[in-house]
């Protein structure tokens, strides 16, 4: 099933950084294509979401790319993902060149894609649920640092 991206987006209390302007619609009169592409939709399965969104940067094999100091980190074989809160916080809040995805993905979609990335490219089989997303949304923990440069 495919869903229009504007329906049921994550709205989190306690995270004021998740703001009106979105990465999909950068607002404030940037150069941009204009009012179109509005029917672009994201699928609901974790695998498809990975392919339609994440692999634009993390690459199809989830091994990332670039070099130290200008790198998209690998999601495959990534020990930071052992703790499921880590990727949840990153997807909700963004960090550096990693955008937040609250404006184009729903909570179930965020849960699905993290479950897929942790289970398929790593060996962390416990699923991430919408309840996990809500828990992070309400406790609003700080964004963890990374050593993405390495």
């Amino acid at each position, binding site marked *: 099933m495919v869903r229009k991206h504007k329906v049921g987006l994550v709205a989190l209390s306690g995270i004021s950084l998740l*703001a009106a302007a979105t990465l999909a*619609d950068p607002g404030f009169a940037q150069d941009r294509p*204009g*009012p*179109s*592409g509005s*029917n672009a939709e994201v699928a609901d399965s974790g695998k498809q979401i990975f392919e339609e969104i994440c*692999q634009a940067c993390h690459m199809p094999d989830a091994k990332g790319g670039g070099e130290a*100091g200008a790198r998209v980190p690998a999601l495959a074989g990534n020990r930071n993902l052992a703790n499921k809160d880590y990727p949840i916080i990153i997807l909700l809040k963004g960090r550096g060149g990693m955008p937040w995805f609250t404006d*184009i993905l729903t909570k179930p979609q965020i849960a699905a894609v993290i479950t897929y990335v942790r289970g398929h490219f790593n060996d962390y089989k416990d699923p991430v649920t919408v309840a996990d997303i809500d828990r992070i949304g309400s406790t609003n923990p700080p964004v963890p640092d990374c050593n993405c440069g390495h």
Partner: protein
Amino acid sequence: MTDFPSPDFLAPPTRRQLLTMIGKVGGTAALYQAMTVLGHAAESQFNGPPKLSGARPGASVLVLGSGLAGMLAAYELTKAGYKVQILEFQGRTGGRNYSVRGGDTIAELGSTQTVGFAPGNYLNPGPWRIPYHHRTVLHYCKELGVELEHFAQLNHNAFVHHKDAYGGKPQRYRDLYVDYKGHVAELLAKSLNAGALDTAVTADDKAKLLEAMKDWGVLDKSMAYTKGVKVGEQRGWDRPPGGGVNGAPIPGDVGSLSDTLSTKVWQQIGFYTEHVMQTTMFQPKGGMDHIGKAFAAKVGSLVRLNTHVTKIAQDDKGVTASWTDTKTGATGETRADWLVCTIPATVLGQLDIQVSDKKKAAIRALPYGNSVKIGLEMKRRFWETDYAIYGGHSFTDQDISLISYPTGNWFGDGPAVILGAYPFGIGAYKLAGMTPEKRIAAALDQGSVFHPAEYKAEFRSGATVAWSRMPWILGCCATWTEESREAHYQDLVSMEGRIVLAGEHCSYYGCWQEGALLSSLDAISRLHQRASAA
């Protein structure tokens, strides 16, 4: 106030006299303020190039990044007397000011393309248009001898496509625009005549509004929007006017209200109404990178290419940038008194930079949007010959977002390049995640909706850039929100010790070259002040 310009102090000064007066008393800043209030010059914060002079003998500045912000900084600081060096990650100058031509290679994370365009053809993967009020960009184009030509922006004869409108058949923007205002005018006239707005408008205004709706909406005698010769004069014809026996034109049917609304054409109308999207629009003749090349002609000799900065340190004597030569693998350090850093925040956030935690947090709170461009070289200009479309954009709700027809060399023979995709957001992620070949195939599929017979048959070669896979930026442009501006903007742009940041991301003119240049001018003016005081 000694030489008051008007001998007759009883007569109110003319506008020009007043401005001269204010200029003399308050300097250019006051003059600019006053002009803004009087309704002039509110278009740009540009007040002319900075007049920096008198750098301390031997004072040096290191500039990181040779995009427009970095090269402008180098250009003006050199003029002011500083010794300047630029370090640049890539093997070329210009940064996002970039054009690709036949024979060029495009190196993305995970792929390399060789562009196969015919001589003279190009794609601007990044910036492509310059609004008439981007005074800074226009000023330096003139100063550096960059030839500008018209960029066709609004084209009434191009298309709008929505899957859910008109059975998925693209409609001419002109027809939708005329239908839209016709229906809106008819409805407003109806409510006025029914007295529905009598408490909101005076009788006098009601009469004027009715007249306005009749003219604006091209309504008929009974104040309805219907097929007719008058509407045809705006909307075009089933049979256009001609000569002789069959000279009389035959108007076509108008679209229904529901069909018109389902195209959401008000969004296109709104888009073209934005200050930055209005005409007159310009482009450098032959490719946007002519601006970068013109700057490089002035400061190119100061640039060390293929130099990836990995660490930025400062102490009370100066700054040190550590780097790796991407060709030889050699490492090195460059020292200077002062530093202007124009490295995009996505990458800067991964470097070891000696600034306060507040500034680091600001850098790390700035993700970049994503965008993809796809150039499709066609064997001939069928959009001109077969569709009478000369420049401008056809919009779609598919992932590609739009196709845009080339300005320049109109009526030319031989191949020409259509911009076959320019999405942000979801459409851009989807396309960026594909290999370049698949991206080009998807653009051909989707764009065929506009020109089904020709699009694939006339295709010759393609080239594409996914900004999220450009190794030196990993994104398109900085994405600010009201909250992140509030929390971080001042921390990002403040000068700390000997380091100041500049570039598109350090401006309120996000994703425009104007923003990169204005930010650079502001940064070097503050740097010069501090260096002069030191």
